[in-house]
């Protein structure tokens, strides 16, 4: 029995979601292999083979996989599926794109966004924005699974002594082309793996005011997130969105500022360890999930928070 994890990477570095996915794979049981499909991605394969618990890294080094186009990735996964009881990828925009395509090509179901491995064929996944949890069982020969990364610990990046083996590329249908990307650049920690996240909502009133959030985030070494309303209004880029249809986060500390707490937002952050809400409306639903609620005007509270954090040496 073996399980295959699809590595998320940019051909240079192995990305964190892969590490959580390895942990989920190990819970299913059997040897854990990691597929590194990319272009000039040898360093990533070496990194994957060194991850604790990984028995083998498969490398497919071919320009067709440089940008992980789903049309090319899916046939590759299907060509390997026969050797595996399960294939796992993170449930982020990387894995969500090609995994269902691969599953359908193989005529298998996909089990989306699992947050718990009950047994090798039974998994728990959230539905209805996390307002219900479904326990589902699959008897497909290969289970195609995407993993809610915040629900599984990060595997150690060292300690493993897996081998690196070459695997063959599959046929490339040549029906899609990567044109370019606009990557939001900032020096902050990755939103989905940050220890602290500070998010702003419509209450921020404008993108210009987000410096207030950033100043607090700087003091906390935090990532910055946002509600859909703040993204739709153009205050911040789309990749800041936390929620049912945005990013799922579960940091040690989540600070929601000027966010009302719609169920779609809560779906993305309610598994955070400690939740703080700052909102001027004491009836705002966000207070129902907050461990510490402060009813205040954010334009007073944020500068004050920055000062208080300074005092305790942050």
């Amino acid at each position, binding site marked *: 029995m073996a399980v295959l994890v699809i590595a998320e990477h940019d051909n240079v570095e192995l990305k964190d979601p892969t590490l959580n996915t390895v942990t989920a794979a190990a819970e299913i049981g059997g040897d854990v292999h990691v597929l590194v499909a990319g272009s000039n991605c040898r360093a990533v394969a070496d990194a994957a083979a060194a991850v604790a618990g990984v028995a083998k890294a498969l490398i497919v080094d071919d320009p067709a996989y440089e940008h992980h186009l789903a049309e090319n990735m899916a046939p590759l996964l299907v060509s390997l599926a026969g050797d595996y009881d399960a294939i796992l990828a993170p449930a982020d925009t990387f894995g969500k794109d090609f995994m269902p395509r691969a599953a359908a090509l193989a005529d298998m179901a996909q089990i*989306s966004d699992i947050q718990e491995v009950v047994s090798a064929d039974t998994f728990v996944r959230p539905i209805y924005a996390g307002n219900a949890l479904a326990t589902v069982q699959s008897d497909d020969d290969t289970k195609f699974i995407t993993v809610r990364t915040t629900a599984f610990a990060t595997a150690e990046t060292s300690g493993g002594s897996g081998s690196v083996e070459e695997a063959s590329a599959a046929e490339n249908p040549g*029906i*899609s082309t990567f044109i370019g990307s606009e990557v939001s650049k900032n020096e902050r920690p990755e939103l989905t793996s940050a220890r602290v996240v500070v998010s702003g909502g419509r209450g921020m009133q404008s993108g210009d005011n987000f410096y207030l959030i950033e100043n607090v985030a700087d003091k906390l070494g935090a990532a910055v997130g946002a509600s859909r309303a703040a993204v739709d209004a153009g205050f911040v880029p789309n990749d800041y969105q936390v929620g049912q249809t945005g990013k799922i986060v579960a940091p040690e500390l989540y600070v929601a500022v000027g966010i009302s707490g719609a169920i*779609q937002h809560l779906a993305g952050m309610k598994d955070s360890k400690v939740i703080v809400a700052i909102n001027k409306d004491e009836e705002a639903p966000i207070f129902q999930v907050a*461990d510490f*609620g*402060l009813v205040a005007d954010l334009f007073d509270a944020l500068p004050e928070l920055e000062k*208080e954090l300074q*005092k305790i040496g942050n």
Partner: protein
Amino acid sequence: MKVLVAVKRVIDYNVKVRVKADQSGVETANVKMSMNPFDEIGVEEAIRLHEAGKAEEVVAVSLGPQQCQETIRTALAMGADRGIHVKTDDELQPLAVAKLLKAVIEAEQPGLVILGKQAIDDDSNQTGQMVAALLGWPQATFASELDIGDGNARITREVDGGLETVDVQVPCVMTTDLRLNEPRYASLPNIMKAKKKPIDEKTPEDLGVDIAPRLKTLTVTEPPGREAGIKVESVAELVDKLHNDAGVI
């Protein structure tokens, strides 16, 4: 070019869903149902292509029980030309939906197929990718911008790192993200007009598709709740609590 849009009937996004006591699912009796919000965005995009002269016809397809016709009527009232209802009372999982849609698409031969990126009930985020796979067509998921030409479409996608642009051959499958457009409301005259637009009814048997579920749902339970928190009086108290009690800063 013809555009085909999938529209799913789901529990309205404003409803707080309740898990049934017998753990068999969530309560749907007397609950407000609506078109999946991502599908409203899909219908809007298709209608805009029609209005811009880039599409000749917009066909809205829904799969499921009789009431799906209401969802199709909503799409028709927004501006779609006709509907197709694949009627079944059986549970439909994404792979089965994809197979049914494939059969409809093969009969209809659209140049563009639009689905929502995610249905807000099962939160699967699979069906569009599966339809594309079964047809052997390219897919552009999580779209926030579409520029469709003769033989290709240039589509901007919302990804975790920011935005990505791909060029795909047409016909293709696109799934919508939130920022693609802002869907319109149907006007009263258009709602009246929609009543006369045709809806074609089919069954999975007509289409020759096996829709047996692949995943067995063992239980549906309520997630653990959070313990009630406290209100703090000041920023200083907040920082003190986070530092000394919670130990997170």
